[in-house]
């Protein structure tokens, strides 16, 4: 508000269109993305004994549990990777996806008091939840490298663009679903109970604890529709040094992720105008 332009003009009219994303306005409010993400990170582990270490604990403990049950007891095949590293590859991105999705879904409800009192582009709330999750992802990738080194798998340089692409794909997917469910949650609190189920179901439909190779060809189309599958499989391909990466699959995953994002966004926009009235 420092630049006081006298010709600054706002028109307030009944809202009729659904398909819009005011990039200029989002740019004006860019600090709010940062501030909400910062707040969430700052507040999340207050009054906890382990503090920020919880970020590492979640995938690490899951890795151990899955290794015991699926690696040792069920003897799940894991290609040329040791099972702990195999499952951690999946868990790092899966944790990012599922945590972002569940916190984005509740982001509007938990900031109800702000929505009712102040105007700002509400898209910022679910998106900044995913940004918060991104910080965790960065930390967990370091954990992945550490575990990789422990098993003497030195990640090649190609891993960086794969991580970036994987991040973009999972960001778009989590945001798209997050936008959709957060908007739905404003009207139907049922979403709160659906989300944990939904995430659990997706975990089984995503090759986190098992490789795609164990699924018969008739079930493969599920992995094509699920962008997270391509991300996780490519990560495994690159970290094992086999460079067995399905670039076509990644391309399709990118397109599907983008479609999910745009669908979520337009649903969000269509319902946004009534948030303050019905939340």
């Amino acid at each position, binding site marked *: *508000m*420092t630049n006081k332009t006298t010709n600054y003009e706002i028109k307030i*009219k009944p809202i009729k269109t659904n398909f819009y994303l005011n990039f200029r306005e989002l740019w004006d409010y860019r600090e709010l993305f940062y501030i909400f993400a910062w707040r969430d990170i700052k507040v999340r582990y207050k009054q906890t004994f382990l503090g920020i270490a919880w970020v590492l604990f979640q995938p690490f403990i899951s890795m151990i549990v899955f290794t015991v049950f699926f690696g040792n007891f069920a003897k799940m095949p894991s290609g040329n990777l040791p099972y702990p590293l195999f499952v951690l590859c999946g868990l790092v991105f899966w944790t990012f996806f599922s945590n972002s999705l569940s916190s984005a879904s509740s982001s509007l409800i938990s900031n109800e008091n702000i929505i009712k009192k102040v105007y700002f582009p509400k898209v910022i709330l679910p998106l900044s939840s995913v940004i918060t999750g991104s910080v965790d992802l960065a930390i967990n990738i370091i954990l992945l490298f550490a575990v990789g080194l422990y098993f003497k798998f030195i990640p090649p340089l190609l891993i960086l663009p794969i991580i970036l692409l994987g991040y973009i794909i999972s960001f778009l997917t989590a945001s798209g679903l997050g936008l959709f469910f957060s908007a739905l949650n404003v009207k139907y609190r049922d979403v709160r109970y659906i989300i944990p189920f939904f995430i659990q179901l997706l975990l089984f439909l995503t090759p986190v604890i098992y490789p795609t190779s164990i699924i018969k060809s008739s079930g493969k189309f599920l992995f094509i529709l699920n962008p997270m599958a391509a991300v996780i499989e490519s990560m495994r391909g690159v970290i094992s040094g086999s460079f067995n990466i399905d670039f076509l699959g990644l391309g399709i995953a990118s397109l599907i992720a983008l479609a999910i994002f745009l669908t979520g966004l337009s649903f969000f926009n269509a319902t946004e105008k009534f948030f303050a009235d019905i939340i």
Partner: protein
Amino acid sequence: MKPTIEVNNLYKKYTFGLKQSNYSLRDNIVNTTKKLPSFLSQKKIHGKLEKNQFWALKNISFKVMPGEVIGIIGRNGAGKSTLLKILSRITPPTKGEITLRGRVASLLEVGTGFHSELTGKENIYLNGAILGMKRAEINDKFDEIVNFAEIPKFLDTPVKHYSSGMYMRLAFAIAAHLDPEILLVDEVLAVGDAEFQKKCLGKMGEVAKAGRTILFVSHNMNAISRLCNKAIFIKNGNIRFYGKVDETIRLYNNSSLNKIEFIDSKKTHKKAFVKGFKVLTNQDKSSIFSNNVYTFIVDIQVQKDLSKLEVGMGINDELGHRITTLFSRFYNIKFQVKCGFSTFFCKVKNLTLKPGVYYANIFIGDRYEAYDFILDPVMFKIQTEDNFFPSGMTPDESQGSVLVTQKWSIKKRK
């Protein structure tokens, strides 16, 4: 010069039960199924729609020039807050158009987005950003905010350990240091102690002097007449009057009849509910004066016979401070009420309120359950009169709301 705020034919429609009935998916499915038969006859569904909807604002048009401070007055539910909500873009209008020339900041409630786990310093940045300040701007004004809030020692303490006074001061300090061209204020002054309220009013005066446009919603006529040059009187969603502040306040004061009727179809499912409220005096006049004997009258409707009904009224001053509570339980009285309409009378002899506006919360229920509770209080007014004190003086805001007869004397001591 172009007006800063231009409102043209603004309408806002609300639908009853939008909040309650659509709350969960199941309700919505049930409702849709219920509505299904009425889809067959177009007439029926039309009638139903009309009943569930109401216009919170109807055909509102006005202009505000740069630097004007406009008071918005009206009874609870008249549409004042809805107007501010639309102006601050929290909710869209149903029809009409508004043009705002300049940045808008709203103080619909201070402390929006405060997080109790964060420190005072962190909350300044968080709240500032939510209210629309840039980081650089907050840095510039940081010291000013801290000094205004009088909390330099507690900057690094989480606000959950703050006293409510400190919390309010910090919240208002941040909001007060926004620097918009248009400031919307809604009843912020209803909280905090007298000292703090003075400070807030002072700050708003400063902002006004700096040439900013302010819209100020309040029930505090003193504050309105002191701060504003013009005022808008809203009644039932319409603008009744827009003009000089004194004239508007006079009109508003004359319009309230110390009597209110609740026509509320939503309540018919309750065991009992309040239908009306009024205040009468022993003198046969429509106005109430300080030295009168007041009779508070509550009309209720009861759906079935009740044997242990209790009635209570909380009398608050215009800043929301409780003055006294009238409650049948204090006298161990439980009313037997037959199905239908009943009226309760509570006669009060020695409550001498100074002239001004007062509010009553009304409760009916039994020991275990509130059948109806009017939390959005109803207003009544004590008229100005000059003969309570021989001097003809009336105590000001800081001297309290209750008038007492006093006998003064002096005795010389050794």
